[in-house]
């Protein structure tokens, strides 16, 4: 569905993208993670057709983004809503721009506002909504026409748990329905919940790509044991064997045992640190 090959982009003295490549298949959620300035937003803007790459190619369903806008749904990083316009009017506008009309448009608005828990705020101007409600409304404008490629740039930034859960449920559902999703975030646990594949970006390119299981394979976890002679903390690739070894050596009684498998946060930190060095 999405093919981005060797993209480059330079803003004055900043190399925003330096050979950024990413492919996302239909039905796949690609979680794009990376430090601020890693190139995530520039990449999203490029796939949206808002920026032209200095080099490289972007194809959405085999066509350049400019010719595929009806298939793309974008929720930008910053809130981009008209403050004096209601949520319903926003959804009507973006629905109509995508070609929805009449009963089909009304049905999509009803379905989406229910799924994103916006029903009670549909007729409230966006400027009067809370931050979480604005986040959901903005995501709804990206989802209203059931795009086959969803670009969600930090859609849950600053959102409360309810907002986050509502968004995650809808995004997962859309992927199950066949949409390809690019989901940038700093909240790595969301990607686990979304069952997303991971792309780690740094310095304008993707430095690691795969499923979370593939990427976590080989990363050390941690064994923590609290015993009578004090706490023991061991970093290891084999949690079970290490735990047994620790239990053989510590003095009884043991107060607690904790096994920490490697997480996406560990992966992210290790890749980012490796890239810095």
């Amino acid at each position, binding site marked *: 569905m999405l093919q981005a090959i060797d993209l480059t982009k330079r803003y004055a003295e900043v190399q925003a993208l330096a050979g950024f490549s990413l492919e996302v298949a239909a039905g796949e959620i690609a979680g794009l993670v990376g430090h601020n300035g890693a190139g995530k937003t520039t990449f999203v803007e490029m796939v949206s057709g*808002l920026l032209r790459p200095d080099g490289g190619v972007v194809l959405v369903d085999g066509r350049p983004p400019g010719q595929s806008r009806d298939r793309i749904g974008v929720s*930008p990083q910053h809130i981009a809503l008209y403050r004096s316009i209601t949520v319903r009017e926003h959804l009507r506008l973006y629905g109509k721009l*995508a070609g929805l009309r009449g009963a089909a448009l009304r049905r999509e608005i009803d379905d989406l506002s229910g799924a994103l828990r916006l029903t009670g705020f549909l007729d409230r101007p966006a400027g009067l909504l809370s931050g979480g409600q604005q986040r959901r409304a903005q995501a709804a404008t990206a989802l209203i026409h059931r795009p086959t490629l969803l670009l969600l740039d930090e859609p849950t930034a600053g959102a409360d748990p309810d907002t986050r859960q509502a968004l995650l449920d809808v995004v997962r559902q859309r992927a199950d329905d066949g949409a390809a999703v690019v989901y940038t975030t700093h909240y790595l646990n969301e990607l686990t919940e979304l069952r997303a594949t991971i792309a780690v970006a740094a310095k304008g390119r993707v430095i690691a790509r795969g499923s979370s299981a593939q990427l976590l394979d080989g990363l050390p976890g941690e064994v923590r044991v609290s015993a009578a002679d004090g706490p023991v903390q061991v970093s290891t690739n084999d949690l079970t064997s290490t735990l047994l070894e620790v239990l053989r050596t510590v003095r009884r009684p043991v107060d607690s045992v904790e096994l920490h498998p490697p997480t996406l946060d560990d992966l992210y930190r290790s890749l980012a640190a490796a890239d810095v060095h």
Partner: protein
Amino acid sequence: MSTDSLYRTAALVKYNVILRLRDPAQLVSYLVTPMIFMVLFKPLYTKALGGGLVQTVTGQLVMFSVFAMAIVGNAIFVEREWRTWDRLRASRATRAELLIGKALPVFAVLMFQQTVLVVYGCLVVGMPVPRSIGLLALAMAVWGFTLMTMGSALATLVRSRGDLMMASDVGSIAISSIGGALLPVSLMPGWAQAVAPFSPGYWGLGMIRSAVEGRTADTLRPALVCLGIALVAGTFASYRLARGWGRSRLV
């Protein structure tokens, strides 16, 4: 234009109309203030000038229609400030549809303002009814189009809302007063008379005054100058709007 394109353009026009209707303060200000000034300045102009009634009405009309450039500027600027323009650019709407959707409602606002002031001028101030309504409508349309393009170009250049207000206030006073909206150019100092033709207000006022008096030839020449200004400003504004602002740090 295809049916789909018309449908999208209509949707864009509709929401821009809603935006204008929900923020009417500037328009109200630029309607009421010239109405007050017309009544106050009427005795002065009628005693000082032959044909003072036409100067009373058209001078204030031109001055406050230039002020209304701020409405155009604001309409563009909020898209920058609220980051909505790029969101629209990422939609299926084409550049032309976005520009038409944005332009038509503000053009309608400018035409509405001029129409109300002319009607007020005839009914309350006592300006003679224009001999050719069609000619006057043409002149107002050309002037409205010129202002719309100038306001749009201005909005794509400024760095903040404060800049926009400053530029539109100072620019409006300069354009309209040097153009003869307050004092006829023939009564100005020599240097101001020399500078006047460089002001769009000079051509706008000449065009509208001639149209009110039914002088077709004298209306068309300034109309061509105004259209030339509109072409330059409109091309610049369209270029800037079509490209968007990206990650511009201007706002």
